[in-house]
């Protein structure tokens, strides 16, 4: 187990270094941040630019700057925004809860929907409930998330005037963004639950449970589902990255004050430290969740540790 833990931690560290390196490198390609900072500040001499570079540490070689960034990362210092000089960690800290709240709400909706639907599809394999669930989930998989969001606004806000079209005020404003991501996630998860459940239902202890005369719902939800839960939790954990990626886009449609909106505003304003901060924090989040899922899996299932 110690060896597995060590290897897995090393792997996570490697990914973190690779991701931050790629992002810092990409951002360095944009040109001179000093020139961008000086935009609109009237007449700027080369000496002024040199002073800005020195103040920002931009005259250092790339590797030194990158190591500075890594050091900052461990102390919670992500640099300062080009716009107004606010600490990036402060901006990210303000936006992160909104994104996480949306992520968990979507995950909750999708789990609440996909488990009963997936179990139903598996139990009635090949018959009409299975076919209907399968086709609906395939349609759900084909939805562009941002378009589904726009269609919800059209229906719920413009036509029926039931829900606020944008912003984060009160619980009503959660419904549409969370439902958008929840529905798309459900489409994937129903298929996962169905496949996992089909495999479990073939096993001998399910036959034993049925032979003992246990009721159908006890067999399904207590015996079978519990044994499905380990692979399912892994899948749900691995989805977190994709979920955050989708939320970034959907936030844009609903003007949700989360990391996605922060990132796009940063792109529009060419505010690269903020963009770098957002992407680093999101990747860190995804890497940690994947790591936790893997370690949990390793604890539960000894076969994983060996591979």
């Amino acid at each position: 187990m110690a060896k597995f833990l060590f290897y897995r931690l090393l792997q996570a560290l490697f990914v973190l270094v690779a991701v931050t390196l790629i992002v810092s490198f990409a951002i360095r390609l944009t040109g001179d941040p000093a020139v961008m900072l000086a935009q609109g500040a009237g007449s700027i001499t080369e000496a002024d630019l040199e002073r800005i570079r020195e103040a920002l540490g931009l005259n250092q070689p790339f590797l030194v700057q990158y190591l500075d960034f890594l050091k900052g990362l461990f102390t919670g210092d992500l640099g300062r925004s080009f716009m107004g000089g606010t600490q990036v960690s402060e901006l990210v800290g303000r936006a992160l809860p909104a994104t996480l709240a949306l992520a968990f709400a979507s995950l909750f909706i999708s789990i609440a929907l996909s488990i009963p639907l997936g179990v139903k599809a598996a139990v009635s394999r090949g018959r009409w409930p299975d076919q209907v669930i399968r086709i609906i989930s395939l349609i759900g998989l084909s939805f562009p998330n941002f378009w589904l969001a726009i269609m919800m606004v059209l229906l719920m806000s413009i036509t029926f005037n039931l829900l606020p079209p944008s912003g984060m005020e009160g619980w009503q404003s959660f419904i549409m963004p969370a439902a958008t991501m929840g529905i798309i996630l459900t489409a994937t998860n129903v298929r996962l639950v169905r496949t996992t459940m089909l495999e479990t239902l073939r096993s001998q202890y399910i036959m034993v449970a049925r032979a003992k005369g246990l009721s159908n719902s006890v067999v399904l939800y207590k015996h079978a589902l519990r044994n499905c839960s380990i692979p399912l939790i892994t899948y749900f954990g691995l989805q977190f990255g994709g979920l955050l990626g989708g939320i970034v886009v959907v936030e844009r449609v609903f003007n949700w004050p989360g990391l996605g909106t922060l990132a796009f505003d940063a792109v529009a304003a060419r505010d690269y430290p903020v963009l770098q901060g957002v992407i680093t924090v999101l990747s860190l989040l995804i890497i940690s969740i994947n790591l936790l899922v893997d370690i949990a899996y390793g604890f539960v299932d000894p076969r994983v540790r060996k591979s």
Partner: protein
Amino acid sequence: MSVNSLLFNFSKLRRFKSLEFIMGTVLVGGIGLAVLFSSWLFPDGGSGVNLAMRLTPPLADGNFLLGTDPLGRDVLARVIIGGEISLKVGFYSALGAVVLGIVMGLLSGYYGGIVDIIVMRFADVQLALPFILLAITFIAVIGGGLTNMIILLIVSQWVQYARLVRGSVLSLKDREFILSAQAIGVRDWRILFQHLLPNLLGPVIVLMTLNVANNILLESSLTFLGLGVDPVIPSWGGMLAEGRTYLQTAWWVSVFPGVAILLTVLGLNLLGDWLRDTLDPTGRTTR
């Protein structure tokens, strides 16, 4: 001498009658043909500005079945012409990723070593970083446009194919037909491309079909966010971004491009599912 070529053994494609195959072919084929003949169907390229007819609702005027946009351009024409961008990006990027992924996967599975390490570490990074974030960073830096988007999609997706191919090679390379080919002194590249490749193409084709669908979704998201192709060129994502402003007064401007994306992706997903049931019954390509 491919023992059990999955690609060319058409007897395996016996389930042509399945609903998935028929619906998928009708959707993808119909949209593909419409896009292919779009310049013949709409000679003005959907750019005929007609301010007198601006925001005409669907069916209100015989010339504009799906209505007109804020500049009086025909929505139907623009939806069909806009499909070209999505189909191009989806197909070319999947093709590029397949070629690169197959080569890297074959090398990494057959020889191991440094290529293997590169492929597996790339896979780790890919798993940890959602594509959309990578795309935002790079496009903010190098700019959008068709070519950049295709390159970005290839770079971020070849690893999936490489992993799939690598896995298949690992399971095939100790089989008798490979060992005997090695024994009679067949050159390595022939073993890789003539003996191994045909035997692992089935799952690769399944993955590619689903990948084209996924790439179309990614392309339209990026263009919708203003990070993709030039807004002047008609594209589904771009039309949706434009139409959003008029959501209150003219729903049709943002509904129909989305329907086009939905139907195309659905068609590809149906075909992918059907191909998987047919070519890859053991389910190596999952998602």
